[in-house]
C-alpha cells in the first residue's frame, strides 16, 4: 500500500531534528495545498511527511517599521490583515486572489515560496519588497535575499535539513506605492499567465522616481526582477510614457516559455501592458499614502 508516516512535531526545533533523522526520505508539509495534490498525482512519494501546520511560532505578522511574516502564516491571515492591506498592499493584492478561500485557509506563504513554482503569486511581491528569507537547520540559521532564493522551477537554495522560518521585509521609503497584477483567464482559482509586481518610491514632488522595483512571475524559469527596467525608471519622471517604455524593457528582459496556458510572445505582450498598468496603480497609491 502506498502511504506515508505523518509526523506532527511540537516545535521548529523538533521539526529540524526530524528532518536530520529522515533526510531525503522526508518532505515538509504546511497547508498541504501543493504537497497533498502532488502526492495524490504521484509526483512525490515521500516516506515521511513532517507537518508544520500547528506551529504557532511560524504563524505571525509583526509590524515595526518593516514587516516580519512567519513562514507558516496562511494566505487568508495575510488577506484579512488590515495593516498588510494599508502598508503592504502589494501582498494583499497577491494573496486575496490566490486560489480560493478554502485554499487560502490552508496554504501558507512559506509553502508558496518553497514550492518554487514560476507562477507563485507571493513571489513577485516579496521580490519587489527586497525580502530576506530566514532559513533554519540544526546547525543554525542563515539569511538569503529572496532574489537569490530560487534556483529553477521547483528548485530553491534549500539544502536537506533546512526549512524556511521567516520573511523579513525592510520598511519601504516614504512616498512609496506598490501593487501586484496578474493576468488570468478567469478571476478565481487560476494561476497567472503572467504576474507583475511593481514598487515605486517618489521624490518629494511625487513625480520623480527615487527607486523602482519590478518583479515578474511566469516570465522565466524562476520569478525574476527586471533590473534594466528598474534602472531606466530611476531618476525619471513617472508617467504613462516612461512606464510604457519600462514595460517594453521588462518584456525584453523576460524569457517566458510557451506553455498550455500561454505563448511566449503573448506573455511578453502582457508584461509590457501590465508593467504600465501596475505602475499607474503604484502612482495612485503613493499619492494616496502621501495625502493621509
Amino acid at each position, binding site marked *: 500500500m502506498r502511504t506515508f508516516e505523518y509526523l506532527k512535531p511540537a516545535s521548529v526545533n523538533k521539526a529540524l531534528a526530524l528532518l536530520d533523522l529522515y533526510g531525503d526520505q522526508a518532505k515538509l508539509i504546511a497547508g498541504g*495545498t501543493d504537497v*497533498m495534490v502532488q502526492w495524490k498525482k504521484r509526483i512525490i512519494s515521500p516516506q515521511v*511527511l513532517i507537518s508544520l*501546520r500547528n506551529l504557532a511560532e511560524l504563524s505571525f505578522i509583526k509590524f515595526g517599521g518593516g514587516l516580519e511574516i512567519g513562514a507558516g502564516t496562511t494566505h487568508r491571515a495575510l488577506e484579512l490583515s488590515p495593516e498588510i492591506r494599508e502598508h503592504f498592499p502589494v501582498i494583499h493584492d497577491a494573496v486575496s486572489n490566490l486560489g480560493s*478561500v478554502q485554499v487560502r*485557509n490552508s496554504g501558507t506563504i512559506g509553502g508558496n515560496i518553497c514550492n518554487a513554482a514560476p507562477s507563485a503569486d507571493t513571489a513577485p511581491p516579496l521580490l519587489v519588497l527586497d525580502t530576506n528569507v530566514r532559513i533554519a537547520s540544526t546547525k543554525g540559521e542563515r539569511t538569503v535575499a529572496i532574489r537569490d532564493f530560487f534556483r529553477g522551477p521547483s528548485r530553491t537554495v534549500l539544502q536537506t535539513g533546512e526549512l524556511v522560518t521567516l520573511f523579513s521585509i525592510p520598511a519601504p521609503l516614504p512616498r512609496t506605492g506598490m501593487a501586484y497584477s496578474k493576468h488570468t483567464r478567469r478571476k478565481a482559482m487560476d494561476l497567472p499567465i503572467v504576474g507583475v509586481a511593481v514598487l515605486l518610491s517618489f521624490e518629494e514632488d511625487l513625480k520623480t522616481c527615487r527607486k523602482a522595483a519590478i518583479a515578474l512571475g511566469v516570465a522565466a524559469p524562476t520569478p525574476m526582477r527586471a533590473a534594466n527596467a528598474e534602472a531606466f525608471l530611476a531618476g525619471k519622471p513617472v508617467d504613462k510614457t516612461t512606464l510604457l517604455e519600462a514595460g517594453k524593457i521588462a518584456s525584453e528582459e523576460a524569457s517566458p516559455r510557451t506553455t498550455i496556458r500561454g505563448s511566449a510572445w503573448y506573455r511578453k505582450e502582457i508584461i509590457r501592458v501590465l508593467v504600465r498598468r501596475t505602475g499607474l496603480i503604484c502612482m495612485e497609491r503613493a499619492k494616496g499614502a502621501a495625502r493621509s
Partner: protein
Amino acid sequence: MKLTIGFSVNGDSVEVEVLPHWNLLKVLRDVLELTGAKQGCGEGECGACTVLVNGAPVNSCIYPVLEVEGKEVTTIEGLMDKSGRLHPIQQAFLEKAGVQCGFCTPGMIMSAFALLKANPDPTEDEIRHAIAGNMCRCTGYVQIVESVQHAAAVMSGRSQERAGKE
C-alpha cells in the same frame, strides 16, 4: 498501521481509526457516513468537498485527516437544527432555485455559511469572492448568489423585499 484520532463533528465527539495518508473527506464519507460533502476533483480545485475546520472553510479532499485531531469539523449535516428544520441558507437555496443538480450545493452552502458568519450583509462582489472556490457545473451562479443574498436578508431580519431588489 491504523491510528486512532479524536475530533468533533457537528458538535459530537468522535474517535476513528485512520491510515496516515487518508484525507478528511474520505473519513467523513466512508467512516462516519456523512455523505453531504462530495468528492469532485479531489485536488482542491472545485470546492464540492468544502467543510469547516474550526470555523474556516477548507477543501477536505486534500486536508490530511491527522490534522483534524482535537479540532471542530462542521459539515452540511450540522447546519440543520435539532428539530430537523433546515438552516436559513438551505431554505434560501430551495426557495431561490440555488440548487440544480445539487452536487456543488453542500460546498456552496458551507462557503456561504462561513461568509455570513463573518459578514452578515455582504455585497454581491463579496459573495462572489467567497464562493469563487466552489464550482457549479450547471452554471447556476446567478441563482446561487441570489440565494445567499436572500439568506443574508432572512438571517439578519431585513425585509425580503430588499433582498429581491438587490
